[in-house]
């Protein structure tokens, strides 16, 4: 099964479940089918399994609830970060389950997602939206306040050329943070541009994807890794 067929299969599974928002593991599988690097992760269905997976993935880990009813996981207290030993993972598993039930007693909980917590990268956001005039457009910005407060973002219309990707990265005011300032190392801007082009290809080949938030993406000294991803299909 090629990448395109694999994505189509996931999307039709989501449709069959009468959903239009992909679960985080589904979104990440879709993205990795198109060659995007995502965090290595596993979904645990028991506290024991969570501890075992955390060991495999390498401490520290992040743990999140997987549930179609819980989209805004931070608001629902369904995310735990910096879990650096088995006890903390076990405790986090139980706490997340309790918080999820407290947030929405009817929520279907598919497990707890675990991935190795990344450090040393620069946080960026890549998004996709559907514009009334131009159709699919890709947004790029630095993470946190740069997007929320400063609105320091750039847009390009799908499909993106390699040149477009580089331009939109260089366009934002915070660009020097990626090239390495104040003794910080330069980040892998080539990998970031590759990622933007891959996201564009994914959007171009799958018209029914209306919106995406890849937030955050970590741009490392080598490579760029999608840490969290949300994909929304047209209604």
């Amino acid at each position, binding site marked *: 099964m090629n990448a395109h067929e694999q994505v189509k299969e996931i999307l039709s599974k989501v449709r069959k479940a009468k959903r239009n*928002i992909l679960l985080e593991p589904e979104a990440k599988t879709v993205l990795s089918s198109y060659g995007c690097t995502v965090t290595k992760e596993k979904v645990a269905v028991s506290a024991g399994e969570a501890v075992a997976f955390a060991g495999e993935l390498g401490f520290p880990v992040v743990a999140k609830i997987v549930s179609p009813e819980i989209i805004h996981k931070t608001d629902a207290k369904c995310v735990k970060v910096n879990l650096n030993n088995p006890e903390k993972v076990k405790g986090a598993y139980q706490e997340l389950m309790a918080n999820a039930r407290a947030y929405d007693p009817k929520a279907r909980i598919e497990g707890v997602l675990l991935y190795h917590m990344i450090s040393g990268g620069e946080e960026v*956001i890549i*998004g*996709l*939206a*559907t*514009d*009334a*005039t*131009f*159709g699919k*457009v890709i*947004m790029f910005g630095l993470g946190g306040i740069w*997007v929320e407060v400063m*609105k320091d*973002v*750039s*847009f*390009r*219309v799908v499909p993106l*050329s*390699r*040149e*477009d990707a580089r*331009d*939109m990265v260089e*366009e934002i005011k915070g660009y020097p943070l990626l090239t390495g300032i104040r003794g910080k190392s330069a980040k892998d801007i080539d990998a970031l541009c590759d990622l933007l082009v891959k996201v564009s290809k994914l959007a171009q080949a799958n018209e029914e994807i209306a*919106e*995406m*938030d890849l*937030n955050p993406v970590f741009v490392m000294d080598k490579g760029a890794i999608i840490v969290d991803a*949300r994909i*929304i299909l047209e209604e």
Partner: protein
Amino acid sequence: MEPKEREALDKFFYPQSVAVIGASAEPKKTGYVWVKNFVEYGYKGKIYPINPKEDEILGFKAYKSVLDVPDEIDLVIFIVPAAAMVKIMEECVKKKIPAGIIHSAGYAETGKEGVLLQQKLVDMARQGGMKLIGPNCVGILCPESGHPWARRSTFPKEVGGVAVISQSGGGGGYFINMGEVRGLSFSKFISIGNECDVSVIDFMDYLKDDPKTNAVFVYLEGFRDGQRFLKIAKPLSRVKPVLVYKVGRTEVGRKMTASHTGSIAGSLAVYDGAFRQAGVLRVEDFEEAQDYLTAFENVWYGQGIPKGPRVGIIAGPGGPGVAAADTCGEVGLEVPPFSEETVRKLAEEIPGASRTNPTDIDLGAMAMLKGKNPFVVRANIIEADDNIDMMAFVGLGENNPKAALDAMLEIQATCKKPFIVIWPSAGKEVDECKEVLLQKKVPLFLTPERGAKALGALIRYKKAVERLEKEDLQ
């Protein structure tokens, strides 16, 4: 653009014969003004006023209907109430007129019935092979053929290289009139109105191959089809600069979105991205557009394309020179030190002169050097500097404007590197000298900041073309 399509649009600019439906003998009416404009603008083709109540208008025989005109008609101008249009359109289609301008308002902008009527007219025209612009527009301006707009203002007589497409008839008209004062001249002006048939993007496509047009300015409210804009604008930008002034910054009817990206994506930000992708330069206002167009017409096409972004600044007073240098830095230009050779020559020929970039001249003590103007002496030295791609002469002063004018004309005649003149002074004598510079197509700017930004636009465009070329090779 297909040759057939091109020929069809040619009729708007170069009609052999024009019928004006709703032509009037009453000087207060647009139907009178427009016919009179044809006469005053020097239109050489045939004019057929159509008015069932008149025998003659402005010396032309009037007809009751286009069907009574014995000749073929290339273009019809409709100045009639919307309610009367269906019957008139039937006659025009029967007459096989290939192009029409609907001037009057009262269509899609008025509501549902207006939308339906407009669509009916477009359907009739398309079936009959007629291209339409408008409704709700002031028409076309083509100085070359003497085809005038409907406005009561003056029209530019000089044929130049700037084409203007405007979604506002009034706004576009102001732009042309302001541009004339600024020393710009125009190839074509299109007031597109409600864009019922031929679109802004269609005319962008047309202008790509128009040999009379060097640069395109678009006064834009919005595109119907953003994907097609990119398809047409990229090859257009490859061959000539496109500037867009986008108005209407709030978005109507944007869908509610569930994602973070959707909530940030304002339409202006998306337009901005699309413009950059297409190599189109977005401007903030008319002045900026006219500054850039001046640079494209008189530097890019007049003097030549700057090889790179390095500017040598030769200033009268020091302050404006520094202001120009600051703005150069902000818009991606460089103001590098002069070469050793230049520094040596400046010291040799002009004792006591500053040898840094910007270099300034003490205008108060400005004396001729060995019979030569100090601007010219510096220009000759700095022009030969391999570190410098273009020059800006800033602040020519008001003590002896005639000498400054002569110096600039001498530089224009001999200088092989692109240059601009920034002359913020005013006064009768200065203004007269500036008028000469405008006439001689010397690129003239009012302030250091505006001049430097215009040079920046040249380099931005140059990079955009290089990027589009690179993209094509992929």
